[in-house]
């Protein structure tokens, strides 16, 4: 629970929002610029890891976080498969890009690809954070 020094905590407080925003940017612009769901998800997971390292944590907090992150991980994966399956249900082709593509190089374009990126971002962010928790809090999680 103790965490690191006041300097680290203050700096973390300042940068954490920017890093999160940058992660969101990378995810949302996945179809336009380099990056995408995986890279953005890793950055977002980094936010939570940074918060944990700077502030420390308790047994209860870690348990709660591991449950929440595993739920988000499942939801992300289900969203991704759901988008793919929606193509199968609506048009008869699995993974068909059934949404109109729009104008290239605009934020709202490329059909289902931004949606897939968001789903991957959730999955990867939650997944990597789960891995971090599994390493850090492994003895509490194993008790379940």
């Amino acid at each position, binding site marked *: 629970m103790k965490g690191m020094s006041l300097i680290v905590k203050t700096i973390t407080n300042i940068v954490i929002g920017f890093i999160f925003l940058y992660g969101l940017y990378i995810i949302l612009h996945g179809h336009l610029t380099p990056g995408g769901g995986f890279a953005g998800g890793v950055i977002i997971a980094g936010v939570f890891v940074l918060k944990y390292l700077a502030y420390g944590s308790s047994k209860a907090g870690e348990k709660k976080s591991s*449950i929440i992150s*595993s*739920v988000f*991980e*499942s*939801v992300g*994966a*289900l969203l991704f*498969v*759901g988008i*793919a*399956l929606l*193509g*199968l*249900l609506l048009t*008869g*082709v*699995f*993974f*068909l*890009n059934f949404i109109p593509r729009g104008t290239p190089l605009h934020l709202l374009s490329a059909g289902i690809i931004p949606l897939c990126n968001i789903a991957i971002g959730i999955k990867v962010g939650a997944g990597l954070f789960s891995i971090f928790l599994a390493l850090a809090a492994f003895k509490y999680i*194993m008790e*379940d």
Partner: protein
Amino acid sequence: MSIIPLYFTIPLITAFIIPLLGKISKSLVWIVTTIVSFALFILALYGVTLTQETSMIVYKMGNWPPPLGIVMAFDSFSALMVLVISIIVFTGCFFSLRYIAHYTGQWKFYTLYMLITAGMMGIAITGDLFNMFVFLEIAAISSYCLVAFGVDAEELEASFKYMVMGEIGGLTFLLAIALLYARTSTLNLADISNTIQGNGMNSFFWMILGMLLFAFSIKAALVPFHTWLPDAHPAAPAPVSSLLSGIFIKVLGIYTTARIVYNIFGLTRANAPTFFNLLIGLGLLSIAWAGLTALKQKDYKRLLGYSTVSQIGYIMIGFGIGNYYGVAGAVFYILAHALGKGLLFLTSGAVVHRAGTRELDKLAGLGESMSTTAWSFRFGALSLIGLPPLVGFFAKLFIVLGAIKAGLLWLAIIAIGLSVLTLAYLLKIENNVFMKKGKMAGLKKAPFTMRIAMVFLVIVMLLTGLGFQTLMNFIVGPAAHALLRGFEYAQLVFGSFALNF
């Protein structure tokens, strides 16, 4: 709406729903998994009927045409593999209810179980080499976790050993894919096949084939590369041992080898006799070496693990013979061994569940107290040994017929002679555990769901044995023909694309 992508999406979705359900109720997870695996079984039967009408169903993922996009190529051989996977997955799932009860984190087991199913289904129906690698890794990584599921020292050691060996195979496969992609500029199996057909087999392609054979031999646990299996398969929970030994190594090792050798590289005994003799050699070595080692084992499941390595040798011989009877025998053997060894590992699970030990010396007198388990074991063992009218007999018969037709009389004699080994090591279990009178005679019967799972497999085995002619005409025969088509595979994949597009 085509059903082809459902084979791997249904288990995949279930795998990700289970962690959410697991937070609500434990029994709900089992119910959902059982329903899903039964639905897969029904879908697999429907898939078999589909392949009766069209010899090759090509499904374009996201409607991208073949050389660019990923295709699913579903033919009779895929249909047979999907059917066998779904049978073993269904019985294993039914068996798991009581067996898994004493582990913590049960929903994790079912998540991994469904992921391994998705991976195997994907390998069996994909028509893209890199896609095959991805599914292979999904299945393999899930299996590493499942082997370590008990998290005892023995299980973790087995899992680590398995992971190191398995990843050497997996990475060799990846390297082979990279080299092949550099040369042919395509990852589509049919397109690679066309390139090979155009260039002929040069030394580069032989090197690739060698690397692939090495990778798949590790996955299939053929003898020089088998050392991980006798540790890994016994360490896993019994329903998983049944899945791993029954079908997993066949999908990852045997199916991939057969598909690539016959359909992609277009090899036949006529144009590559040395390579086919190598397959026969690997097969014979596996049968003899692992069979002899199995005789010395003192652990129920470890003996069965060595038996699996030994039996895989017969399948390899069948593919190495390379004529219709040999290939049909090998395909039949995949089915027969999946049912037989799946059943034997389930009986081991029932015995371990009640007696709490796997050592043959300590187990005695279970024949009276666990009669269903004992009789299930006897049926499974007799099928593996090859006694008519059980399904194992017909599988061996076709392999022997194939050897005689190919003019390899010595091979036929050796193959029959070596099945004495099978009889010997399975009798050792029968004698020690079920025939001998002993202090374990007072144990309770196996739980009801376990008995249902075992009896189901016995019934399937009897039905496949008695109805072997029907099976031959509708499932095994077409599967063998699908392999012996050779380069025609590529034409079928691209041909149906031209019709649909």
